[in-house]
């Protein structure tokens, strides 16, 4: 599916006509959409679909220490320089979501046991 970016801030706006990855599709069609009453839905696919979302924020000391570590790692002079360079060059060098990955990787995926090994291996 073609992904088009446009406008002055194209680095920071990813526009897609339809969901571009499995995680987005799962959000859309497993959690949302018309549900038909159990009585009418006489049979449903016999699978267990599991979605893992590691990014949910939980207020805990562990979370705080992780934040503290991230702030300590921060190179403030570098952050400013990098931000300006990106604006000037109009390119962040990877053109994708890579930079938005934070302290916890945005790992959300859906799988049904054997499907996962087979297809993930092929697609990365």
């Amino acid at each position, binding site marked *: 599916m073609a992904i088009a970016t446009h406008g*002055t*801030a*194209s*680095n*920071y*706006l*990813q*526009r*897609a*006509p*339809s*969901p571009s990855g499995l995680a987005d*599709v*799962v959000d*859309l*069609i*497993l959690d949302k*959409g*018309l549900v*038909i*009453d159990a009585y*009418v*839905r*006489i*049979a*449903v*696919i*016999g*699978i*267990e679909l599991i*979605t893992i979302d590691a*990014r949910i924020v939980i*207020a805990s*000391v562990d979370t*705080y*220490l*992780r*934040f*503290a*570590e*991230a*702030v*300590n790692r*921060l190179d403030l002079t570098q*952050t*400013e320089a990098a*931000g300006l360079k*990106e*604006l000037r060059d109009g390119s962040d060098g990877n053109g994708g*979501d890579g*930079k*938005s990955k*934070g*302290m*916890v990787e945005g790992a959300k995926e859906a*799988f*049904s046991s*054997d499907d996962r090994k087979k*297809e*993930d291996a092929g697609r990365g």
Partner: protein
Amino acid sequence: MTVQISRSPGADQASANGVYCYGITWATAAPPRGEGVGGKVVAAVRDGELAALTSPVESTKVRAKRRDLLNHSEVLAAALERGTVLPLRFGVVFENEAALVEGFLRSRQEELAALLRKFEGKVELTVRAQYEENAILAEIVQANPRIAQLREQTRGGQDAATYPLRAELGERVADELQRRTERDRKALLDRLSPLAVDTEVDRERIEHQALRASFLVKRRDVTAFDDVMDELAGTHAGRIRFKYVGPLAPHSFVSVTPLESR
């Protein structure tokens, strides 16, 4: 989060005539095309003024593959290009065509037709706004003298002596991040919601997520929405990354009356 789709009694029995259903359109819509679940051809089953987008399944025990999820989504996207479509959640199988027609299309005719009219000329747009970690943390440090001070005091020391300071630093950062999230979320919604007929905001707290929302927008207003998205990406360049998807079928906005309450 675990989603378990339960099976009703009898579902284990093989049914050679199973009908998988993707969505509902007007009977007059152009015929569907493309591949559905299990690679089967998608076809319309019509009754009165309604049509169901379906494909055959050999058994009611179908294993969902990655490709099947993507195909479900693509069938609906293709239907949306040709008119209005009510998207069904993934995984609905009727025992046979008669069960689909009599148990759903016909018995729900008025309700489904009213929904199709309601969503006529409207599409769903989804927006996800994610903070750039380094940028937002730098903002927080620079705007908060106490946080900057704690940072200086704990840099390079991960030992027990700095533990209370690190815990305080982290808590302050987390609180500040939450405040900024609420502020930015409100600012983004204030610009986007006025262009939408309806807005659904996901309130789940996801790390570094400033906003995740779905907007029901009139097709003729999509261009204006695009422009506002461009403007917002410009305003927040360097600190927020946007993912903007659509036009989609109105996944986040459809619902039917549960049988029990009728």
